[in-house]
């Protein structure tokens, strides 16, 4: 289990994490969501003992990372796939990493095989595509057969095939009972891979739950088409709903649900040609959750406030 306990981290005057606390339960895939610049990578670096927080601490199975000896046997991480000396071969990079924690050379060959890099193992990493580098990074993370794995934005910059491959890898690793924390700024990606998500924004904890829980908690709109939108809108507003013009001459209704809108139409004797509950998209939910917590809101977004 990973515990982030009241962590505050600032770089100079820039506050990256404010009193951030959460727990990552063992044995499941936890998505770590937040807009760009929300502090996901900083959190990962704090967990890995690379950056020291000014307050609070992060522990893995009760110990801070820097208290671990031979940590690759307990925690594997892919923080930045391109962080490899470009002049070294994939195999030699793995061997150097393995040697540091007393891991055998044959294990290097095994993980190369697992990520499908055996054929290019002797090529210099500088010649690798991003997808190949991601595979190498995952191989490094798996070297010590750790029970805890951290992946920072592993999907970024991958082609569809690479994305599918990484999803499969996550499922395989999760099925083996490992604890996986994977960060992303894409909620839709987390809906496909994560059992539950933790959402942060501007370095602060926002919420956690399964993707379904987060989506159903979000407001749902109703799309309605009728012979007299103007009169229907009046009735809806009178009943406490709000309306706005929807696509193709429809009416988008917020606050009221589809059943209420239908009853209002019946009472007013307005014939409906369409009545559709619009489930909020994952991205809408995510935007809603983090809207107040994004550092850089576009001018269009600002106008709505």
């Amino acid at each position, binding site marked *: 289990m990973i515990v982030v306990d009241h962590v505050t981290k600032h*770089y100079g005057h820039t506050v990256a994490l404010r009193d951030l606390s959460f727990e990552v339960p063992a044995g499941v895939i936890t998505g770590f969501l937040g807009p760009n610049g929300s502090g996901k990578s900083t959190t990962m*670096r704090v967990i*890995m*003992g*690379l*950056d*020291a927080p000014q307050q609070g601490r992060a522990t893995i199975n009760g110990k801070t*990372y*820097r*208290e*671990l*000896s*031979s*940590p*690759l046997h307990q*925690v594997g*991480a892919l*923080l*930045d796939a*391109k*962080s*490899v*000396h*470009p*002049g*070294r*071969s994939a195999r*030699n*990079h793995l*061997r*150097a*990493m*393995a*040697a*540091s*924690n*007393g891991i055998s050379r044959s294990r290097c060959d095994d993980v190369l095989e697992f990520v499908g890099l055996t054929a290019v193992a002797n090529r210099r990493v500088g010649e690798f595509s991003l997808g190949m580098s991601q595979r190498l990074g995952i191989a*490094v993370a798996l070297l010590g057969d750790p029970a805890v794995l951290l992946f920072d934005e592993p999907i970024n910059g991958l082609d569809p095939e690479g994305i599918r491959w990484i999803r499969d890898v996550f499922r395989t690793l999760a099925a083996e009972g490992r604890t996986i924390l994977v960060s992303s700024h894409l909620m839709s990606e987390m809906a496909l891979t994560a059992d539950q998500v933790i959402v942060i924004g501007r370095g602060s904890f926002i919420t956690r739950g399964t993707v379904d829980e987060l989506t159903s908690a979000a407001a749902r709109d109703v799309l309605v088409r009728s012979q007299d939108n103007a009169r229907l809108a009046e009735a809806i507003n009178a009943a406490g709903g709000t309306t706005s013009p929807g696509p193709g001459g429809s009416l988008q209704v917020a606050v009221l649900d589809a059943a209420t809108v239908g009853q209002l139409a019946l009472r007013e004797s307005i014939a409906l040609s369409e009545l559709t509950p619009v489930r909020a998209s994952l991205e809408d939910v995510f935007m809603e959750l983090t809207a107040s917590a994004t550092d850089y809101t576009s001018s269009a977004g600002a106008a709505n406030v």
Partner: protein
Amino acid sequence: MSEPAVGAAVRSEWVKFRTVRSTPIGYAVTVLLTIGLGVLITFAIRSHWHTMDPIARFAFDPVSTSLAGTLFAQFAIGVIGILFITSEYASGSIRATLAAIPQRWRVVVAKVLVLGVTTLIVSEVVVLAAFLIGQRIYAGVVPTASLGGPGVARSVVLGGAYLALLGLLGLGLGLIIRHQSAAISVYTSLLLIVPIIVILLPSGWQNVVARYEPSALGRSMMSVSPSSNMFSAWPAAAVLAIYVVVTLVVATVLLERRDA
């Protein structure tokens, strides 16, 4: 737990050290400069010997002149040390290194052992070769020295030690500065610019300060009888070793404290 962990760190650093091109290239340049320039310099002295000033002939040191190539090779050696750490900062792989070995001082100890021992072995062999080749070139025309002569073996051994210490100085500076080009600038400034600044000082100060310059320490270490205003060989080696230790201690403390 601590000793095998350091051993593992050493094995890891050794794999890293020998699997990048900059290491063999750096040592090849070291060999080329030490021996190649040694050959050029000793040949030049041999051919001018009969027209040389009698005082210069009297003060002539066949040992240090045959080892003069080290004063050029010191730049190649320093760059090997600097690249050994700054390449990790440039690529970002320092984070992988520190994630694998979170007891950061072990990384420094391992790098010092790998770089120090390798450079010492290479330098001792190369300096000995430069000495022997130089004496061969002098033979018959210019007075020569033999390893059995007073202070000769010491000069040769300390010549190799000088290069190894400078490699470690480069490593320490690289670890403190973390940027390759900045570290190389500081390193070359220490060896080239500081002596020029010393020359500009009033002569009273100059006599006190000049002997502390790294390259002056190197000349003291490699000369059979250093001039009176310089350190003699072993104290010069001790002063240089203190520079290196202080630099590495500061580097280790910073590495432990700073965010990676």
